[in-house]
């Protein structure tokens, strides 16, 4: 594909660069597309986790000791006490106990058929929603719960969420670093290819200079060629990355039981991927132009 169709005085079309540069840019675009898709998916997951979990707490009430009947009655009393206490706490918007059937349903993705668990003494859960705009002293609430309701513990999702978010952010930064490194490698390759072109076409460049060509006139021809090759390579890389990403998405959706969070990519991610070949082409063009101008400026 040619974006710039202007005539060139330099025979750049026949250079070895024309053969290897598009393939290299294609590979770099493919890797960048995969890394960027990872960054955007991860960003979306973090945002959803943050939105879903912040403002919610879980209180776990351990089964009371004693025989099965007594234990169930006493555990329910403890749950009701805990719910009352929670509802009277400033900043708590709602507190609902989750019955045993629902608890078993939540365990099903991990443990499979839960019919065998019916008779086991399972802790009961209370789903608590707090007002995100108000500051609730969770340590104090935890202490009060422990003191007032035997066997009750407060599970603050924010602790593990913040660790998970930190880990995700690290992976995200790593992926972005990979994209930057890929950009660096692409630039280095274009610099090498351009310098080779300058050496190969030294005689033609001398003639153009003698005729009165400015360095920018020569640089434009190298830059336009690099842009065309970069764009061709970028589009090829994107064409290879699209089915690969599609396959990963399809495989993730096939996983049952909600073990994985929703891996869909936001629209900004798709736009970024579509823009990627143009970024690669612009990077190649700017690098080639800069390289030619710098090299020619050193000439006598």
């Amino acid at each position: 594909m040619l974006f710039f169709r202007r005539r060139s005085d330099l025979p750049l079309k026949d250079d070895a660069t024309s053969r290897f540069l598009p393939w290299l840019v294609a590979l770099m675009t493919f890797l960048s597309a995969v890394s960027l898709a990872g960054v955007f998916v991860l960003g979306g997951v973090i945002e959803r986790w943050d939105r879903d979990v912040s403002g919610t707490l879980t209180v776990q009430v351990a089964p009371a000791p004693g025989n099965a009947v007594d234990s169930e009655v006493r555990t329910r009393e403890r749950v009701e006490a805990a719910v009352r206490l929670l509802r009277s706490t400033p900043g708590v918007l709602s507190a609902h106990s989750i019955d045993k059937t629902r608890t078993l349903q939540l365990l099903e993705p991990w443990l499979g058929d839960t019919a065998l668990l019916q008779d086991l003494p399972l802790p009961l859960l209370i789903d608590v929603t707090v007002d995100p705009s108000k500051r609730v002293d969770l340590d104090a609430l935890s202490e009060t719960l422990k003191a007032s309701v035997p066997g009750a513990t407060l599970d603050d999702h924010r602790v593990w969420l913040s660790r998970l978010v930190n880990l995700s952010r690290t992976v995200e930064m790593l992926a972005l670093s990979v994209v930057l490194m890929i950009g660096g490698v692409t630039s280095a390759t274009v610099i090498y290819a351009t310098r080779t072109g300058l050496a190969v076409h030294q005689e033609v460049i001398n003639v153009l200079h003698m005729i009165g060509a400015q360095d920018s006139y020569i640089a434009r021809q190298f830059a336009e060629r690099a842009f065309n090759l970069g764009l061709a390579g970028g589009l090829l890389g994107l064409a290879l990355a699209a089915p690969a990403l599609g396959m990963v998405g399809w495989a993730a959706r096939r996983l049952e039981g909600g073990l994985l969070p929703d891996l869909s990519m936001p629209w900004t991610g798709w736009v970024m991927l579509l823009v990627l070949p143009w970024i690669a082409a612009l990077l190649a063009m700017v690098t080639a132009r800069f390289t030619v101008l710098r090299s020619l400026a050193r000439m006598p």
Partner: protein
Amino acid sequence: MRQKGSNQAESVVTFEEVGLRYGRGPEILQDVNFALPAGSFHFLTGMSGAGKSSLLRLIYLAARPSSGRIRLFGQDISRLPRAEMPALRRRVGVVFQDFRLLDHLSALDNVALPLRVAGARESEVQKHVPELLSWVGLSEYLHAKPPTLSGGQQQRVAIARAVIARPDLLLADEPTGNVDDHIAMRLLYLFEELNRLGTTIVIATHNEALVSRFNHPRLHIERGRVERV
């Protein structure tokens, strides 16, 4: 096309005590002093290897003098910033001894180079270039590439390229070396016509017979020194 004639009395090229040596080699030119008035026509003569091409190289900014001072269109070239060289070079047309045509371009595109480099419109290129190539007898070779042309034909393409932009100064290094007498005379008449329009001409040649047919002053190089004859 440039308008000419405003500074006819000024020197286009001035050499003051100019010396030239390549690396640590012997001095090719020494204590060269001369001035070429605007609109003049000079032959540059001398034996083969006397330094004619070197002197031309100094004028078209392909070499720097080892000593002395050269002024081109009133500008001291030793103080000329690199960025200003292209503008000065566009005022100089050069016919190289080895033609220096670009083999991958057609005769038309080779001749069009000075116009395109100067930013001329393509309509202008398509109008003037075939006209000039036709004038030098190459109307049937517009799209031929240099390797398919004979030495004489290549030389005519090189001359057409040097004159297409109507330069203020035309330097030609043995421009008639590969053509028969009839074509040689025709080319020299072309140079005379350009000269009449205001272009300053310097033709390096060792063809004494040709020089004697024209009544133009001569700069003769011998043992590295230039004398006006």
